[in-house]
């Protein structure tokens, strides 16, 4: 058999379409699409784009929730040689205008649900050539671009893979991340970045074509995207459920579809444990081979509760990474889950992780420094921001901005953010440690620890807390924390909320948490 090339992101789909054409690649509500079907539709879209002079060097914006049309759009744009920029499905007009100004796309692919957003975002002033929608409900008049019904315009195009040359180091996607500072940054990823990272992830998760992944994380978020690419690379199946707000229905579907893998960020698991009947599903979830967690620090409390709530054989992979690393940098071997419960593990294959000091020297004696990652997965840079790129990328690799250390057995640990270093009265505070203490009281669903600038103390500590029950108050919480922490580590401000504000990717929105603290203070 001819060795099929798999050096470009869309090769994952093309390879699976040849080797397993009739395998169910994607399940979403009533849709069950095979690899052949998805590849054919993506090819039609790619050919339409090429026919309209959209190819190497061009950019296409995708604004869709997780669905088969998203997947077709994503791979279709890549097959045409263009770069795909997938934006958050709850983006607001200001955010969209900002992206349009920076990205200068020729095409936008979206849905009728976003027509109002698109019409309120003055997209006419951004030289868009085509707007492709899955349905058209509104009227589009007096515009300089063309609006087409996606299915209709691609219908008559060939279903064969287009024969165009795309370079492995060409830009494949730009993923926006805001990180811990306000302004969104466009992370540029090449085909090689994503392909290398996808291969490493498949390796350590031991993914095969028998894997069936429940996807509740959005594809526009780099972790959600890795679920799509990894499972397509191995010829597995993804099951999309966009109703995680109703976790019981997600659990039912996991049993029904015999899911083998589930992935989430810390809040996903907090909800599964305390707002869903997960514990009652333990005996029914036999098919789950593993759960994986990334997207920030998850408290020890939640980790241990998750371990006991899941079937005994289910492995838990704790992972660490960054959008700038195409997703993944490290993972913790699940066999070390309890022994190294505070660790983010070791570098994935093809990646080197070092602890470095401010002078660019590697720290090898277990002291704390910045985590720096290098490998083929490290981004090309930030879109149109060379100076910011230079601040984080150098010959040593990508400077994560996270502080940590390597222990004697070579396991990595994160202690906090470089730019978020909390100091209260001269004491350095590890916010992860404080979050763990709040969770250990067993009164809390989620918490965010913030440092409010204080001219006298450096920082004042504030906690925004979502307790498990309505009748838990700040005094009770602090009382419990005081049993476990010295006084200087106790937050002086506590705000109780029903639920912590989150971004569309499920990660806690720290900026909104700051607003909560400042608003009620006034």
């Amino acid at each position, binding site marked *: 058999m001819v060795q099929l090339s798999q050096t470009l992101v869309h090769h994952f789909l093309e390879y699976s379409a040849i080797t397993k054409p009739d395998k169910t690649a994607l399940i979403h509500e009533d849709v069950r699409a095979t690899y052949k079907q998805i590849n054919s539709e993506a090819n039609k879209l790619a050919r339409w784009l090429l026919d309209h002079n959209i190819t190497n060097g061009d950019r296409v914006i995708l604004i869709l929730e997780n669905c088969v049309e998203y997947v077709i759009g994503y791979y279709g744009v890549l097959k045409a040689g263009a770069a795909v920029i997938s934006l958050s*499905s*709850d983006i607001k007009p200001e955010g969209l205008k900002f992206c349009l100004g920076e990205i200068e796309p020729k095409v936008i692919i979206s849905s009728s*649900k976003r027509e109002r957003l698109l019409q309120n975002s003055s997209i006419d002033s951004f030289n868009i050539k085509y707007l492709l929608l899955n349905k058209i409900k509104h009227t589009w008049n007096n515009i300089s671009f063309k609006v087409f019904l996606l299915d209709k315009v691609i219908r008559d195009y060939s279903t064969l893979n287009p024969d165009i040359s795309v370079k492995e180091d060409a830009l494949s996607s730009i993923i926006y991340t805001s990180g811990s500072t306000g302004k969104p940054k466009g992370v540029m990823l090449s085909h090689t970045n994503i392909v290398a990272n996808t291969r490493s992830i498949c390796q350590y998760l031991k993914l095969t074509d028998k894997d069936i992944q429940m996807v509740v994380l959005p594809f526009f978020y780099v972790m959600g995207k890795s679920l799509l690419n990894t499972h397509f690379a191995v010829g597995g199946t993804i099951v999309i459920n*966009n*109703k*995680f*707000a*109703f*976790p*019981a*229905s997600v659990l039912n579907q996991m049993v029904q579809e015999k899911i083998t893998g589930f992935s989430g960020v810390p809040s996903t698991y907090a909800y599964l444990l305390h*707002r*869903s*009947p997960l514990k*009652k599903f333990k005996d029914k979830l036999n098919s789950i081979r593993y759960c994986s967690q990334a997207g920030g620090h998850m408290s020890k409390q939640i980790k241990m509760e998750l371990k006991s709530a899941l079937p005994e054989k289910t492995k838990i992979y704790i992972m660490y990474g960054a959008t700038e690393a195409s997703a993944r940098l490290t993972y913790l071997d699940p066999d070390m889950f309890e022994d190294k419960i505070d660790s983010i593990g070791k570098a994935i294959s093809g990646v080197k992780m070092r602890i470095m000091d401010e002078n660019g020297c590697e720290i090898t004696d277990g002291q704390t420094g910045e985590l720096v990652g290098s490998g083929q997965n490290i981004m090309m840079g930030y879109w149109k921001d060379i100076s910011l790129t230079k601040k984080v990328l150098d010959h040593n690799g990508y400077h994560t901005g996270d502080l940590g250390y390597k222990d004697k057995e070579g396991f990595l640990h994160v202690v906090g953010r470089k730019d978020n270093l909390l100091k209260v009265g001269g004491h350095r505070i590890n916010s992860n440690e404080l979050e763990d203490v709040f969770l250990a009281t067993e009164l809390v669903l989620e918490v965010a620890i913030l440092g409010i600038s204080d001219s006298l103390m450096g920082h004042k500590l504030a906690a925004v807390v979502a307790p498990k029950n309505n009748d838990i108050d700040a005094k009770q919480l602090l009382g419990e924390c005081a049993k476990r922490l010295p006084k200087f580590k106790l937050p002086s401000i506590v705000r109780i909320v*029903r*639920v912590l*504000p*989150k971004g*569309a990717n499920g990660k806690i929105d720290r900026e909104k948490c700051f607003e909560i603290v400042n608003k009620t203070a006034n």
Partner: protein
Amino acid sequence: MIDIKKKVRAFIVENFLFGVDDELTDATSFLEDGVIDSTGILELVEFIEEEFSMSIDEEELMPENLDSLNNIELFLTNKLQKK
């Protein structure tokens, strides 16, 4: 006779739609149509529990019960009858 749909609609329009309710029908799926995000669903649940003096179990957090005004009316009517 409690008008469940009217009360819930008013809450949603005020808290999630900023007073604009032209696209919210009785059959509109809150999640699918982006009326309420996943965080908002919990706020809605809290409102329903307080307004109608009942508690909603984790197992009842299903789209069939809560993802549209029609579904909420059916779900709550059944629950209130059982009380």
